[in-house]
């Protein structure tokens, strides 16, 4: 399950910390320390994912991204940035990146997003994801119906979206910020535990009355749906 990741980051400490962590996860990591170098390496298109710092010497990250997209290189790109405002995040996403992570971040958050992006690439290769199944859970995205052990679950629209997102990232950690961004499409940082409340409501409908829970809390990182 090891993948090729290009890491373009000029801060040596951050770069070696990330490279070490990603290598431990089984990925092979190549590094570039400025934008031009990064663009040069990225253009061969053989990477599964590019992690791109926004502020880089010689050529900034957004310019690298625009150049890549202009050259029709559609490798997923995860932007890292110290620019934390909502406007900056939107700008980063509008430039054609697939995800945007604000510094400082936890490695768990980065890993969760990297895995989600790699997974998305997989599903592109295999479009036959009509039905999603996790253990005895069965989801039909066309009719938006959910069954567990043959019994139909009554979910609200948002709860369904939440569960579908979990299911598409089966076995992978999903963080609270990822849920807010992907399920609600909001890019601010709520000051309350509003996401946790939604997840615990979903969990009640999903796992109550069943012996084996499907929705797990991953301490210090987020949640995971796994059989």
């Amino acid at each position: 399950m090891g993948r090729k990741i290009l890491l373009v980051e000029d801060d040596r400490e951050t770069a070696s910390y990330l490279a070490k962590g990603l290598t431990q996860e089984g990925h092979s990591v190549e590094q570039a320390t400025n934008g031009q170098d990064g663009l040069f390496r990225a253009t061969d298109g053989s990477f599964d994912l590019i992690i791109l710092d926004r502020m880089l010497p010689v050529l900034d990250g957004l310019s690298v991204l625009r150049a890549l997209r202009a050259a029709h290189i559609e490798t997923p790109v995860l932007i890292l940035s110290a620019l934390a405002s909502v406007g900056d995040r939107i700008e980063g996403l509008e430039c054609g990146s697939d995800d945007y992570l604000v510094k400082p971040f936890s490695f768990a958050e980065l890993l969760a997003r990297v895995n989600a992006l790699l997974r998305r690439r997989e599903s592109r290769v295999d479009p036959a994801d009509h039905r999603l199944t996790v253990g005895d859970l069965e989801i039909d995205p066309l009719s938006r119906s959910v069954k567990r052990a043959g019994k139909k679950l009554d979910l609200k629209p948002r709860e369904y979206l939440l569960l579908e997102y979990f299911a598409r990232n089966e076995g992978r950690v999903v963080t609270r910020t990822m849920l807010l961004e992907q399920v609600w499409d909001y890019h601010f940082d709520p000051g309350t535990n509003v996401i946790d409340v939604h997840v615990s409501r979903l969990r009640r409908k999903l796992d109550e009355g069943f012996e084996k829970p499907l929705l797990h809390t991953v301490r210090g990182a987020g949640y995971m749906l796994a059989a």
Partner: protein
Amino acid sequence: MPTTLRIALLAGLLALLSNLAVIGFIYERTHDEAVASLHRQVVEQSKVLTDVYRTGGKKALNEAIDDTLAYADPQTAVALISSDGRELKGNVATAPSVQSMQEGYHSAVVRLRGQPSPHLGELVLSRLSGGEWLVSGRLVGEGIAFRTTLERSLILALAVAGLLGLLCGVILAHYVSRRIGQIAAVANRISARNLSQRVPLSGAGDSFDRLGLQINAMLDRISMLMEELRLLTDSLAHDLRSPVSRLRSAAHAAAQTSDPGEQEELLGSVVRNADALIRILTTVLEISRSEALTGRNQFAWFDVRELAAELAEMYDPLADERGAALKFERPDRAVPLFGHRQLLAQALSNLLENAIRYGSKGGKIDVRVQPGEKRIRIEVADRGPGIPLNRREEAMKRFGRLDSSRSDEGAGLGLALAQSIAHLHDGELHLEDNGPGLLTSLEIPVHRQQSAR
């Protein structure tokens, strides 16, 4: 001071030039006047004498010439010259020769009898019917003398005018530099530490006073901003202190302990406190960016009704958990707004979180969207304790949390951020009485939507 000198010289030069123009005009006019009057006199005298000859003959002319010489001033020149060039009568010692004589008006140099030197004269020569020549005219010496006197006094006047102009310039320059100097001195004494200096006003209401007033108003504004900044820095430092010190002691304890379970717990606390710090800093940054109006390039059309519905749905479980029923009164039609959807979502979520955090005990929270002719109002109303009128402004300030304990999870930035996002949209955040409870509302003007795009 070179500027003073320049002003003085300029004023002097201007005075000199204007006086020169006046004097030149007077000189020209008086000169022309003198010449014209001389000309008139000469022509008239000649005409009188020839008339006398024509009516009274030679005898009458002789008498007239005698009378003229006897009563007229010494500048008068009269002579009767025979056709062969002899002077028959008159006071002209050196007359022009008969051969060269031509009738008409001439300027010629003549010497009068009894005078030592010849002078320039204006003469009229007329041929009488008897063949004699009548020379009649005046020396212009008188006019020349008048002109020299005039010239001399004019030059003197010019010198005096120049000096006075220079003096005026010096006084003016001194006045200007004194008034400017006062302003400059105040500006000099102003520093980040001391903004209390103000420009003294003369009370004359002149342009210096206006300049001073403007500078004073600017200083007032700067000191207000400095004070705000100081308060902000103070409260930021204060609010950062507790998470930082908690973080420090947790990190320290984690480094000391050998129990892995305890260590993990402590490191978790380090991360939580670091996250709290980051959240505070991000929000402060977001506020200052909104206040600086960056982000308007990301404005787009969206439906406020859908946004409010989505957020109400998102916060409904949270309110429910804290014992309040959150209700959204959905308008019948879409409410389009040209703005920053993400930032307005954040502003509204701040209002909702605020209502849930402080007003849940009231049991009911209402969210409303009111489309209007001129403005769109987005309201969040709770039935909690509310905020007394005199503390509402304070509540909207950065770190303006009203409970002094500061132990709650919010850093008191929510309303400040909502307000700055309203400002980004040319709108306002209002805190009102919900009787009982607090009614917070974002009012976004519609005119901006029309002007955009």
